[in-house]
């Protein structure tokens, strides 16, 4: 096993969650690799620090507060049940109410169906889905990717093959900056545009995603506030998404949007890399 493999196992090794054979492999590697040993010692140190954290004591009146709340819920339940029973009897005995209620339900369903069918409705649905993707991406990039691919028609392919589908050779076909590894590329057909999506992994295992698309404003970020910044001579539009940056800039005849950028230094590096690779 090489260093990235071992580094992926360091927490499980520290926490005693590895099978004996794997544990022996990690031990043997740590004996001869100062870099992995350094990272492991950092984890050990954190663990020791965490063990010194002491517990706070809950206030003594807390049970009283809970008990009061429980009593109030019980009272509210009782008072709700009585008028509800009366209303239920009246409802069953009144066919006019049943007709009116059925009509209201039908109007409601039609309204929601119309909303989903109109361009505005589709747009709202898309921005809501993409917003969910962005939030999920920060939490778990794998789950976010599965969500996106489950939502939209897509085709996995190698970057060089994308030209047959989208009509251009995507920027990622020229490779990625050192320390980044290409995990997967898909052509995704989204309501806003068809784009080439590439999931990349940094050397520390974290991810970012590069989208290449024709439209300047695919409205991925809904009404999140955005700022314009000059970066390596390019005008970039930046949006903050859950402690990370998303940035869009024009590249060739198209646009590149990157999600999961750590900071402006990383953005500069990516802009410069793709500019040089044109």
């Amino acid at each position: 096993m090489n260093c990235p493999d071992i580094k992926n196992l360091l927490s499980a090794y520290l926490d005693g969650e590895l099978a004996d054979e794997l544990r022996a492999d990690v031990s043997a590697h740590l004996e001869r690799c100062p870099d992995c040993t350094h990272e492991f010692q950092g984890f050990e140190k954190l663990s020791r620090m965490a063990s010194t954290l002491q517990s706070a004591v809950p206030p003594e009146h807390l049970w009283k507060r809970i008990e009061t709340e429980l009593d109030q819920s019980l009272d509210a339940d009782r008072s709700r049940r009585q008028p509800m029973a009366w209303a239920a009897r009246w409802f069953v005995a009144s066919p006019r109410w049943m007709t009116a209620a059925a009509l209201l339900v039908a109007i409601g369903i039609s309204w929601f169906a119309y909303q989903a069918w109109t361009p505005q409705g589709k747009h709202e649905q898309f921005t809501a889905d993409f917003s969910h993707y962005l939030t999920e991406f920060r939490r778990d990039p794998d789950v976010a990717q599965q969500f996106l691919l489950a939502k939209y028609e897509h085709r996995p392919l190698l970057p060089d093959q994308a030209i047959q589908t989208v009509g251009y050779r995507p920027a990622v076909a020229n490779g990625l900056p050192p320390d980044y590894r290409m995990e997967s590329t898909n052509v995704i057909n989204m309501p806003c545009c068809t784009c080439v999506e590439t999931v990349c992994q940094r050397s520390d295992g974290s991810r970012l995603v590069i989208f290449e698309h024709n439209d300047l404003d695919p409205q991925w970020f809904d009404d999140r506030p955005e700022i314009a910044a000059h970066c390596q001579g390019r005008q970039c539009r930046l949006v903050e998404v859950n402690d990370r940056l998303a940035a869009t800039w024009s590249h060739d005849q198209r646009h590149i949007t990157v999600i999961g950028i750590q900071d402006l230094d990383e953005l500069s590096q990516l802009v410069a890399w793709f500019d040089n690779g044109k």
Partner: protein
Amino acid sequence: MASKEAHDPETAAIDGEVLSACRAGERSAQQRVYELCHLQVYRLMVRMVGLQDAEDVTQQVFLQVFRKIDQFDGHSKFETWLYRLAMNEALQQLRKGRRWKFQPLTHDPMSVAKPEEERGEEKELLEQALARLDPELRALFVLREIEGLSYRQIAETINIPEGTVGSRLNRARRELQQHLSELGWKP
């Protein structure tokens, strides 16, 4: 190999009889559950949402426990079910964004003896770094390092595949180290 399992002797004392009485809404049984679990839940909430909101969220957790006790089917340990409810409540609270950046616990109410200066500084830095950590990663770190849960229990608690717990903990520990470094910590 045998996986480590955290067994809290307090929650282990919650048996079928107490749970049945709880389901029937018996106040003495509810109080018994509270007495056996409140230290654990409060400790978790202090680390997750901060000292300022811990009391409110702990109250919400116990109200949820008593409202949803019928949903506890006994397939997992009561402790795991309780942790799941507590974590959901904490994450929901944090998502509301009311007090996204909580006040770290810089003055420990339990501290009786004055710790060594250096260790005290480290604890304070760790509190601050934890407060900066993404809530989902914080949940993982707290469940492992403070509550001592096994990977299987963590997976059940926050509803993720067991195979991803290790890699997520790697990320939590690396990000925590990064926050600590930014705060001036030298390992």
